[in-house]
């Protein structure tokens, strides 16, 4: 017995240092990091963290105080046990991982001892502690936020689309969040229906926007305007679970913030000073709309299982919509084709650009790879890197020319085949309005509002949207698409959306 006891004692004496080398070793060099901000239903509080060899750590005693967990060092096992309501997570000073209920979670570094405290990588919180905790734990390293529980902290990014004047900017809020907008003399204030804002580093300020900054808590965002600015306006829209707020800031004395940009190149006539919407103070921003019935002639488009042709349905709806817009809204309407003939995609874009239209709407019927797919979808242009670069260059190389009667007009030198690049934000707003109106009248697809690199939109130098009214490959929708009721409903919805878009541009912004 005495022999066994002696041996066990020796074993323990030798095992203890072997299992905890960090505990006996030299303390690592630590430096304080910028504290995290913990946001929970209880409010905000700073959470101190420490840098060890470039890795960010949090002290386990701070974790115990913040999350009401029990921390116990298990000398024999060489680990530290964190317990919450009977559930445990074990971290090791030897290996960069934690064991949570038999599941192994990797960490960027092993636990380290600093003086009398144990430190664990901050990612221990979302990766390991979250697995035993009864509330959501989310770490957002870029914004130094630690979110606890079911709170709403949308990510907000800002972007200057056009320095102008007029200056156009877009604020994207993800996930989609209700927002109220107030315009004051020198600023615009957005109040999000959220618990806080995760604001990405603001865009470089440009034009008549002096600064984006966090506003009043809990979720305010302030856009400071230049003293040279006129009255700004903002249009919010929601698509793909993202709320976009498009902001237009005219120069003081400038009456219209959305001039149709000129299009150098073969698809458009040379711009003439004084002919844009800017030149007439009382003139509506939307005077002319181009309706584009998809396909035609030999190119029939999609076919239904019972023989319905896309080119026929699109022309019928376009003719109904033309009549509705002309009689109800008094706008000039141009059809890219009014009979069954083939029209190239470039010709369709050129017709819109050469007629100096203000809005472009392409009508289509969809086709799917499964007969069950159904519902209307609304598309506006997706820009890849090349398109984004074209937009950046157009904005950077904008030329301002005087116009007859005073004032000025900005001319953008943009590639003719990517003319839509400088209108994507407005197109997104228009697409959002169409989605909202269509869903009142017709069944929508599972992704009703989308961005895609659609050829017919790319060269159009004005807000442009393509509507797929339904799936012709779906037997029920094929029948529906040929009915007068369906076509009238679609035409009515689209007319309402055009009217709303025009009103949003024409009405004076809230004071």
């Amino acid at each position, binding site marked *: 017995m005495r022999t066994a006891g*002696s041996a066990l004692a020796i074993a323990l004496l030798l095992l203890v240092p072997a299992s905890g080398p960090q505990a006996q070793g030299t303390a690592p060099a630590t430096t304080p990091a910028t504290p995290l901000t913990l946001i929970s239903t209880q409010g905000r509080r700073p959470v101190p963290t420490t840098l060890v060899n470039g890795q960010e750590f949090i002290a386990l005693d701070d974790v115990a105080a913040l999350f009401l967990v029990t921390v116990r060092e298990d000398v024999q*096992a060489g680990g530290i046990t964190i317990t919450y309501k009977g559930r445990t997570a074990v971290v090791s000073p030897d290996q960069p991982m934690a064991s949570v209920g038999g599941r192994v979670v990797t960490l960027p570094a092993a636990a380290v001892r600093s003086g009398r405290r144990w430190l664990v990588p901050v990612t221990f919180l979302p990766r390991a502690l979250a697995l035993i905790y009864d509330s959501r734990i989310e770490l957002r390293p870029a914004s130094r936020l630690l979110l606890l529980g079911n709170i709403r902290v949308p990510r907000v990014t800002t972007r200057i689309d056009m320095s102008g004047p007029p200056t156009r900017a877009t604020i994207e809020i993800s996930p989609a969040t209700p927002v109220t907008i107030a315009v004051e003399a020198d600023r615009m204030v957005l109040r999000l229906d959220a618990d806080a804002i995760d604001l990405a580093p603001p865009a470089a300020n440009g034009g008549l926007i002096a600064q984006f900054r966090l506003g009043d808590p809990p979720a305010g965002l302030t856009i400071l305007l230049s003293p040279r600015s006129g009255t700004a306006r903002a249009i919010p829209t929601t698509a793909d679970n993202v709320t976009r707020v498009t902001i237009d800031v005219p120069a003081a004395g400038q009456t219209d913030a959305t001039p149709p940009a000129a299009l150098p190149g073969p698809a458009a006539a040379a711009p003439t000073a004084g002919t844009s919407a800017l030149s007439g103070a009382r003139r509506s921003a939307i005077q002319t709309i181009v309706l584009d019935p998809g396909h035609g002639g030999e190119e029939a488009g*999609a*076919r239904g299982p019972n023989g319905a042709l896309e080119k026929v349905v699109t022309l019928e709806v376009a003719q109904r919509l033309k009549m509705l817009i002309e009689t109800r809204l008094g706008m000039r309407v141009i059809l890219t084709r009014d009979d069954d003939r083939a029209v190239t995609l470039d010709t369709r874009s050129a017709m819109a650009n050469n007629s100096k239209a203000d809005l472009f709407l392409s009508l*289509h019927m969809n086709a799917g790879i*499964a007969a*069950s797919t159904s519902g209307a979808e609304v598309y506006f242009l997706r820009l890849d890197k090349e398109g984004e670069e074209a937009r950046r260059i157009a904005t950077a190389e904008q030329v301002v020319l005087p116009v007859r009667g005073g004032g000025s007009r900005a001319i953008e030198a943009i590639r003719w085949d990517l003319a839509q690049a400088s209108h994507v934000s407005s197109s997104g707003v228009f697409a959002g309005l169409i989605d909202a109106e269509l869903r009142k009248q017709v069944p929508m697809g599972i992704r009703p509002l989308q*961005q895609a690199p659609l050829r017919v939109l790319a060269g159009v130098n004005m807000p442009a949207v393509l509507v*797929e009214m339904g799936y012709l490959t779906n037997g029920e929708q094929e029948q529906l698409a040929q009915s007068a009721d369906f076509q009238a409903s679609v035409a009515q919805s689209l007319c309402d959306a055009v009217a709303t878009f025009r009103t949003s541009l024409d009405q004076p912004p809230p004071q």
Partner: protein
Amino acid sequence: MTRRRYIQAGLGLLLLCACAFLVGRGLDRLFRPTAVSEPPPAATLPPAGVPHITATLFYGTEDGEAITGVRREVPLAGDIVAQGKQILTAQMDAAPPPYVSVVPSGTEVRAFYTTSKGDAFVDLSRTVTDAHGGGSHAELLTVYAIVNAVTTNLPSIQRVQILIDGKQADTLAGHVDLRRPLDRNNAFVRSAPIEP
């Protein structure tokens, strides 16, 4: 030290080693990573004796609403151009059940080129347009199945341009702009985006 003391010390040392071994095994087991719980890939059997890679190819989901990545065995090739052609040739094959092919049956890969800027050119036979059923949705699925198959499996390729019969094409069926290389797009991919 008596002989008995030596025996006691020896036994103690043995016990110490045994304890250390057992504790080490226990800790090792405690922290040993468990298998990642991924769904089993729908992989084809490799041809006997042919070296192969596992590539992610893209097919329509059963409900036709999206495309999804499916792991398939593709013959190993000697360089990126040959590997790209092997991947695309496999992509053109019929989809394994329950998935749906989004590229028209009979479409052939005529050629595959890459540039030093990370662009790739996929030259397809005219069947891809002649046999396409049209519609923005179906056309987007076709285009991004091809673009994503290349960019997902060949990490050095960032953009893909589709050519038809060796020439630049406007669209496949009147909708998606093919005049320039396209970035990978996971908007039409169901399930988590697949990273290379």
